[in-house]
């Protein structure tokens, strides 16, 4: 087994992908030029393989696209992933259930709460533990806020990829407000580790209602600006309408979910179809469109921010009182004050945080709707304090397979727009 130490000659080794390399294959030219006139038809020279590689501004992280180009036309695209593989599923097998959320939270780093939620729900289902209503509503509000932050990040990077560089600054201006709200509530801007098995880490700080409503108003004003800036912009429509078209059948057989599936006319949303947390008690709409191209996916995510705001506002009004963690002894550590008084509480607290709580043997699969699609967690436990297997089904990992049906016979600039419309997060793809 190669040990992981890093010698310099391995660095000098070629960075090519060996078996995964794309090889050119000459083929007859079936691409007809629009005019169909006497434009000289040269027989096909060998096509060129270029890398829109791991270090590239438009690939949203370390995704590598090997493209076979014939002039400007993209003949074939092959995504090569793995440049951010962090071995999180191996690390998850060495961390106790208490520590697990910190590891999982760093997979989809644009919306951390979705990962923590799916991990915590899987552990709670294995433990058959019921989370109190206040914790459920706090979790739902935080997930919707992180959906807003994630879609704002999408608007920023999607705008910049297609050429509207000012969108990058606008998108971050609103996202910064939401991140500061996360810092106010959870203490950290990102990777907050706030949703834990058994409830949430801490109660909402007082005065949170005004801060949340204030952030919603700021983001609402920002969204109106993006809408005015882009949706009617002829250059934007020329670059995005009709690009990267995909149909519902192609999506379903490639297990693609989320905004890409909804852009093809099928309004499938796990929050409506298989409601979890308290989504069946709040009213919101599932936004979907018909054509399944880049323009539709941009509009869906724009309107989804508004829907998330609707949910967050209902959460602020109807947040139930009560405790924010399940009062079950084997999951929740005793409150800090009790530890000074009683010895058992101290021992209990110590055991919980060193060996973690024991989860009875079993296996389960839990799925939630993350901003990118169905985020699932398959967990196998064997009664000890650590999971046997913790596999996260990352939606971006499957959505990347949409590049092939979308990307055929398009220009290089369209390929950038297509990858940006899939909105992959490489931490979730490579785990």
């Amino acid at each position: 087994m190669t040990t992981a130490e890093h010698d310099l000659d391995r660095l000098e080794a070629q960075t090519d992908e060996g078996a995964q390399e794309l090889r050119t294959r000459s083929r007859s030219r079936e691409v007809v030029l629009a005019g169909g006139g006497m434009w000289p038809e040269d027989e096909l020279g060998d096509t060129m393989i270029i890398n829109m590689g791991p270090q590239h501004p438009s690939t949203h992280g370390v995704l590598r696209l090997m493209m076979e180009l014939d002039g400007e036309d993209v003949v074939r695209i092959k995504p090569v992933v793995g440049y951010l593989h962090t071995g999180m599923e191996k690390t998850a097998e060495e961390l106790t259930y208490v520590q697990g959320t910190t590891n999982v939270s760093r997979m989809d780093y644009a919306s951390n709460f979705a990962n923590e939620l799916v991990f915590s729900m899987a552990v709670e289902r294995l433990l058959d533990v019921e989370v109190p209503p206040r914790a459920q509503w706090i979790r739902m509000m935080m997930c919707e806020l992180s959906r807003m932050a994630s879609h704002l990040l999408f608007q920023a990077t999607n705008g910049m990829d297609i050429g509207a560089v000012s969108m990058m600054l606008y998108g971050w201006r609103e996202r910064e407000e939401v991140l500061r709200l996360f810092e106010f509530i959870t203490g950290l801007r990102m990777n907050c580790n706030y949703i834990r098995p058994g409830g949430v880490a801490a109660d909402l700080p007082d005065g949170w209602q005004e801060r949340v409503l204030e952030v919603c108003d700021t983001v609402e004003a920002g969204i109106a600006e993006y809408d005015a800036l882009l949706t009617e912009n002829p250059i934007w429509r020329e670059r995005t309408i009709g690009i990267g078209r995909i149909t519902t059948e192609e999506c379903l057989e490639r297990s693609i979910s989320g905004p890409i599936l909804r852009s093809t006319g099928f309004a499938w949303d796990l929050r409506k179809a298989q409601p979890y947390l308290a989504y069946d008690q709040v009213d919101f709409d599932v936004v979907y469109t018909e054509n399944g191209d880049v323009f539709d996916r941009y509009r869906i995510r724009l309107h989804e921010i508004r829907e998330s705001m609707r949910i967050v506002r209902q959460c602020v009004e109807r947040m139930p009182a009560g405790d924010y963690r399940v009062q079950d002894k084997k999951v929740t550590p005793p409150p800090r004050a009790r530890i000074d008084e009683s010895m058992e509480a101290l021992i209990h607290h110590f055991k919980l945080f060193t060996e973690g709580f024991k989860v009875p043997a079993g296996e389960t699969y839990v799925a939630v709707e993350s901003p990118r699609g169905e985020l699932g967690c398959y967990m196998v436990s064997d009664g000890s304090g650590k999971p046997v297997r913790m596999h996260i089904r990352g939606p971006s990992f499957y959505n990347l397979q949409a590049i092939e049906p979308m990307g055929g016979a398009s220009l290089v600039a369209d390929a950038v727009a297509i990858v940006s419309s899939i909105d992959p997060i490489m931490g979730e793809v490579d785990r």
Partner: protein
Amino acid sequence: MSDYLPILVMVGVVVAFVLLSFVASQLLAPQRPHAAKQAPYECGIVPEQEPAERFPVKFYLVAMSFIVLDVEIVFLYPFSVVFRDLGGFGLVAMAVFVLVLLVPFAYLLSVGALEWGPVRRALERAPGPVLRAPHAVLEPPTRAEEAA
């Protein structure tokens, strides 16, 4: 001589700037030649197959037509400065010049040289409205007609 002075000064400044930047970078930048610095930049990947020498002829033809039309515009600049003094004669001369160059431009348009990339799907569906479904939708939409 006096009216040529501004041009000479500008040429002097340009040459000075070019020389200064070359000399300064030679003098100030640390010289550490390395093979990777000469290698083509492939987003961090070491390319093992050399990039194809033969570029498709389309690029070359578009470059040629660009040069022709661009030079034509360059000639319009001096004309625009003095076209009042030239009066009718200048106008006619420039009109003939522009018309002569309109013919190749029309040919390029007709032949489709400026239509870039693969043929766009003829049926360009206009973007439909953003729809909302307040309740769960379970049935995938069955679309009878399928875009070509």
